[in-house]
């Protein structure tokens, strides 16, 4: 069952064959993404219920948010998804240097996102909107803070993936960490794709 080819593969589980390990890790990450979907889904559900109950509350609350910051952050994250997928692509081709480069861009985008978030939160606090005075702001802070937390975790994850690239670990037959963290990163982007219109652009 084990072979010399296997012992050369870094990061492989001792009882896996390479294709099996890759398929297993990818499947495992998709399962994890399912849990994230249900986690945020609860918040989207609370949003739907209260939006239905009191539309005016949401419309008024939304006026406190600057759509330009939201749109800018949306573009930043979309771009970071693009750089992430280019990183995966480079890893698939075994180009470790390019992986580092594309991951760096992704991390920079994530950092920009968090800086913008920081300024938005600062403004809210200055306007006396924290602790949240009503359900709209309760949901706004909870949803964006939970999302922001996931962005921070993503930065940490990508730094670790980058460190493996710096050691030259990736090749055409092994790039699982990049692919799998890419999936995570795209989910973070996906959630923001929904948060932006729902929080910032209510009529």
């Amino acid at each position, binding site marked *: 069952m084990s072979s010399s080819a296997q012992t050369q593969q870094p990061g492989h589980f001792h*009882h896996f064959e390479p294709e099996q390990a890759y398929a297993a890790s990818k*499947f495992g990450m998709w*399962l994890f993404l399912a849990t994230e979907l249900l986690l945020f889904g609860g918040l989207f559900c*609370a949003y739907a219920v209260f939006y239905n109950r009191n539309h005016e509350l949401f419309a008024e609350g939304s006026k406190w948010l600057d759509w330009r910051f939201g749109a800018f952050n949306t573009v930043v994250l979309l771009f970071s998804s693009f750089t992430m997928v280019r990183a995966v692509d480079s890893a698939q081709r075994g180009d470790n240097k390019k992986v580092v480069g594309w991951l760096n861009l992704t991390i920079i985008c994530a950092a920009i996102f968090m800086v913008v978030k920081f300024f938005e939160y600062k403004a809210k606090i200055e306007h006396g909107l924290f602790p949240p005075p009503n359900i709209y702001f309760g949901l706004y802070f909870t949803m964006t803070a939970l999302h922001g937390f996931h962005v921070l975790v993503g930065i940490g994850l990508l730094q670790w993936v980058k460190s493996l690239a710096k050691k030259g670990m990736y090749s055409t037959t092994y790039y699982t960490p990049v692919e799998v963290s890419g999936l995570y990163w795209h989910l973070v982007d996906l959630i923001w794709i929904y948060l932006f219109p729902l929080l910032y652009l209510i009529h």
Partner: protein
Amino acid sequence: MGAYAQGSGEQLNYINCEKGFWSWWMTIDHKRLGLMYLVSILTFFVIGGVAALLVRAELYSHGKTLYNADTYNIIFSLHGIIMIFLFIVPGIPATLGNFLLPLMVGAKDVAFPKLNRLSFWIYVLGAAVAFCALFLRVDTGWTFYTPYSIQNRWGVITMTLAAFILGFSSILTGLNFLVTIHKMRAPGMTWNRLPLFVWALYSASILQVVATPVIGITLLLLILENVMGVGVFNPAMGGDPVLFQHFFWFYSHPVVYIMILPAFGVINEIIPVFARKPIFGYRAMVIASVGIAAVSFMVWGHHMFVAGMSNNTRYIFSFITFFVAVPTAVKVFNWVGTLYKGSISWDSPMLYALSFVFLFLIAGTTGIHLATLATDAHYHDTYFVVAHFHYTIQGGAVIGLYAGLHYWFPLMFGRMYNEKLAKIAWLILFIGFNGTFLPQFLLGMEGMPRRYYDYPVEFEPLHKISSIFAFFNGLGYVLVLVNLIHGAFKGKKCERNPWGSLSLEWQTPQFPPAHDNWETIPVVTDWGYSYNKPAGYDDHAQHSASKGGSTHV
């Protein structure tokens, strides 16, 4: 043939291959992890059981018996929280599941062994946080309903944080099992030959992965509501306590199936062995397991019939809830079908398995009363519900766990417990359990509300009976645990596969299994249930041979 320890001449198995606390704490061996989970959950079972006896002692007579009402509220809350989050939810999957899954599919370990170890560490962290919460006030019941639970209470905040952490352990275990079952089956272990315990773990794992995040976000919102204010569950801010219940039960209904599906799986493994007959209706059992998992997501509202949902919502939930009884009944018929014309032996695992069928029958049929809107209006929040869920959880899941512990005991320890004591303990347990909870159905029908500290004197006779038998119930468990613990250390060493099972986990080259289970991955050629059938008889794979069962989907 396996390595031998120097000096003692004992064969090296997963227990004696390495010694010392650190080797256990840092292990990634699924069998060791399973044992550590077992010790942990049984510890919490005892603590939760003591809380139960304190509750029953107080309720022995009306008015104050031992302590005051505030203390009572804390004790029954802790009983529920400990039993559910720290004992029965990890339950069979974390213990028997961890130990057996790789063995049953012919793998050397689960898909992600280090993640498995992380699951255990997270469980320990959650337990530590829960322990801290014991010193703070938690008196909301295990359901943490708002608005009572959002009054800035540190006890609630800490305990819900513990439950949130424990949820991660559950999710990661479920994730690990799903990937293991899909990607690590040995050659020849097709979906059609998969042991029913594995199918049960598969179904429960889906629930663990998909449902647990919802309680995660619910508890997170509860914590935030207490700490900073969010508004969604707080009526003072225009929020909705019924929304909390919706969120809570969306997980907490599937969680009861996480508890019971693996127990069904254990029974499916035991009855064929002790009736020396193939399981009746293998395919129906599989469809029933997966079907129960699927339907379980759509019935949560039956916990909320009198909470204030709209009428149409209630009709729909009641209607769908009736459907869940169907696959469960199919399982009961199939167990009976397996026993029919079987050659039955009455060893202790079989006693547990048979009593499971009986007790779950009571549990399930009383569930119909609760699924019916008209009768539930009367029974909701009474002792009828308490009796129902103790029959399902204790009479079902806990009995299933103990059945499995007795059955797989030789495989786990290479020793046998005392069979006579096991039978006596079972009898005391069985009588004690029924004596505790049958009267509670009557109490509920007469209107005795649950979670009440005091009651009118008319209810006293039934309460007295229930309390007395509760202590027998406790005694039964004490005897079982003494027997099993003694057996694990000092029990008589037994020959391999004492029950004569055909299932793969009993076919390891070493007994108990070596650290990596198999020297070479086995090639499976037969179904594990071909008792008293010609060699190579494979009820199922013969029909589906042309479809070509795959081993790596």
